[in-house]
């Protein structure tokens, strides 16, 4: 009787990457729901458009590279990129904007570097930054929350806006969009107003951007659930949020009129999405525990710097890409002490 030979271990967990990726998407669901509540259906359609574009371009490129298509699509990584990019774009972004960003993310940032596991940069953020640089007007056209506009944008109006540029009845997208809370703050500070004066504007809620603060709260919950489920470790989110709070605290302490509070920075813009869902992309992030803390802190601090003194209202995407660049070096210098080696 002959038996099959194989190397140890002979036990392994059946869970695979698809489960991890599914959990990332589950963790985003509450935030998507809150997003829809405050800002209508745009985000859902963005996600759908991005998903179709991501899966199609991933399949095409895998085919061209002579790689098996089905298992790679099934791992869910392209879908996560699409959902994150869909979340990050303004809710009424034209369909072609979403498509261009997603295709660039999948084709250039991911597949041309060798596919999953080999991309040095976060694909969703590469797509986002390409759009931000190429289409600044579309990328800053944000919707105010529904209780500010005074009317609900219906599902059909959203579809129409995204695919035709008009909400119907001669109402253009431009007519309903406005600056994001961070942009409003930036413009206000630029006009020599104090932070307290700016946040009196109706764009702001109790502790962050109106509507956004609750989306961010849902993202925070989803992120904590991911840590609980061991989809991610706590290091990167702690680094990002800690770094952001620390530097915001310092400057807020120096001049509260010019520099917004840490709480405001946490709950406006992309801090939560970035900390839990973007920066934690394991492929392009640091991998050692200490490295992850440093990597996260770098993102938090760079985000603050770009928000406060840079040319863009938010800086999460740029910060993530800059820290991606530094990740291998950080990893090299933050190797943990191996058992039986001298204590450093």
């Amino acid at each position: 009787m002959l038996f099959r030979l194989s190397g140890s271990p002979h036990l392994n967990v059946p869970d695979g990457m698809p489960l991890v990726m599914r959990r990332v998407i589950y963790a985003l669901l509450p935030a998507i729901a809150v997003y829809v509540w405050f800002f209508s259906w745009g985000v859902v359609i963005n996600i759908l458009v991005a998903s179709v574009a991501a899966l199609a371009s991933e399949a095409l490129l895998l085919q061209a590279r002579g790689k098996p298509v089905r298992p790679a699509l099934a791992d869910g990584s392209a879908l996560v990129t699409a959902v994150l990019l869909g979340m990050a774009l303004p809710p009424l972004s034209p369909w072609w904007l979403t498509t261009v960003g997603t295709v660039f993310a999948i084709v250039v940032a991911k597949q041309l570097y060798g596919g999953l596991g080999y991309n040095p940069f976060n694909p969703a953020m590469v797509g986002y930054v390409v759009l931000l640089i190429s289409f600044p007007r579309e990328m800053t056209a944000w919707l105010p929350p529904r209780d500010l506009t005074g009317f609900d944008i219906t599902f059909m109006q959203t579809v129409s806006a995204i695919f035709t540029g008009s909400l119907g009845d001669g109402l253009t997208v431009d007519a309903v969009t406005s600056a994001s809370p961070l942009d409003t703050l930036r413009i206000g500070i630029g006009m020599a107003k104090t932070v307290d004066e700016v946040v009196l504007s109706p764009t702001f809620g109790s502790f962050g951007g109106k509507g956004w603060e609750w989306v961010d709260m849902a993202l925070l919950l989803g992120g904590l659930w991911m840590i609980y489920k061991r989809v991610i470790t706590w290091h990167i989110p702690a680094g990002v949020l800690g770094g952001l709070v620390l530097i915001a605290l310092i400057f807020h302490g120096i001049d509260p009129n010019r520099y917004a509070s840490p709480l405001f920075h946490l709950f406006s813009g992309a801090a939560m999405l970035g900390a839990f869902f973007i920066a934690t992309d394991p492929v392009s992030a640091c991998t050692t525990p200490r490295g992850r803390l440093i990597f996260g802190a770098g993102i938090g601090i760079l985000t603050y710097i770009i928000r406060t003194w840079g040319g863009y209202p938010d800086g999460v995407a740029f910060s993530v890409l800059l820290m991606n660049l530094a990740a291998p070096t950080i990893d090299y210098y933050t190797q943990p002490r191996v058992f039986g080696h001298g204590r450093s």
Partner: protein
Amino acid sequence: MTKPRKLWRFHGGLHLPEHKQETCHQPSVKARIPTRLILPLQQHIGQPAEPVVKVGDQVLKGQVVAQPSGYVSVPIHASTSGVVTAIGEFPVPHPSGLPAPCIVIEPDGKDEWTERHPVADYRQLAPAEVRNLIRAGGIVGMGGAGFPTFIKLDPGPDKTVETLILNGAECEPYITADDRLMREQPHEVIGGLMILRHALQARECLIGVEDNKPEAYAALLEALRAHPDGDGIQVVQIPTLYPTGGEKQLIKVLTGKEVPSRGLPSDVGVVCQNVATAAAIYRCITAGEPLISRLVTVTGQGVAQPRNMEALIGTPVRELIEQCGGYAGEVEKLIMGGPMMGITLPNDTVPITKTTNCVLVPARGELPAPQPATPCIRCGECMRVCPTNLLPQQIYWHARAKDFDKAQDYNLFDCIECGCCAYVCQSHIPLVQYFRFAKTEIRAQEHERKKAELARKRHESRVERLEREKAERAERLRQKKEAAAATTAGGAPDPKKAAIEAAMERVRAKRAAAQAAAGGETSNPAQQEPAAAETAQAKETG
């Protein structure tokens, strides 16, 4: 007894499904004498033993059939009486799946002992005598590694042993051989510990037992209480966590000390032995019985009646499985050892060796093969569970790229191949295989490098020798010329003087030749040397 001992923990580790219930509650059964015994000459780390019997020889139970060769080696004994029927290559439990030299004995069924020399009071023996008896008993580490025990008991003149640890952790799933041993023969375990303590003159003795074996813990406590010399010995319950049974991990948990990388436990004043080894030592010293049998867990859904068997070393796996009700259902794999670190067997004629603690017979689907590997996404789960605190994801990256220097930079050789990383890998990457491959390649390269170095040295000494000979020839020529000049200058030569001169010249030449031969490489035929030198150079440049 006393207040709970402070325990430490190591990084990572896993809580695995235990699968110990299948066998841990049933008393062990003595296995039958098999129809034939296959005794591999290498059942330990080090040099294989050398046969001292011939085919056709009658042997008695406990008789030495192979003697140690070299220091790191132990003898092999006949597990029962019978006739040597073959000495040759047979399938053995080895990761390579290749056959290896074995002595085959056909038992005569009489189970007749050779002369035994029990020691009435081990305390009358000097430590060195104890070590010699343990070596003569063929005792090796029975927890899996198979390192000759007598060497571990000789930590060297400049080292003192603070702590002697008995390893009763048995952390791998399915295996319960040590558990049963501690429950059924606690006095032998404690007795072995006493002998070890005496041999090492150890100050403190600890027995570490994982807390999923409360009965074993209780049995040892009971035996210890009954023993007159139980002072200074402590049975310690330790948290169940794979791989606590790893020597370095157990030492850390019990003492907080870390065995240095590439070092030995004795470097931190600790000696660690498996509980089964201790029991074997007890039998060896007090009954004069060499290591010829051991407890083996035969388990898995692929065997009808899983249980522990006391089997003679050399019993083919098949005969043990038959005594456990035979195969149950479809079996596609046989594992010797546990599911995390065990090796698969090519067939069931492979024998039980001194280090076999388990024969795992998984039914189809019980230990499914991993799904096809997908790319590493550096999620870091492997790092989180690594008991050595390595970065498996980085080592994998470099091993895959065959960048072995980098893999070593990331401390590849500290990997204990426990399999935690591969177990949790969400990309189902066979990480341990990559690490083994990299280690093997690095060792092979190192070997090549040493060979090239040797060839280079030979080449250099040859060149040196040739030059010396040339110089000597020139010197002789010069002397001859001078002598010729002197004779022409000094008129007619004296024939007697000339004869003496010539004789002295011959002696000088002979002496020079002898010197040249001694200085150069004589074992190597001269024709081969240029070839060796060329390969050496080629290897250095390439």
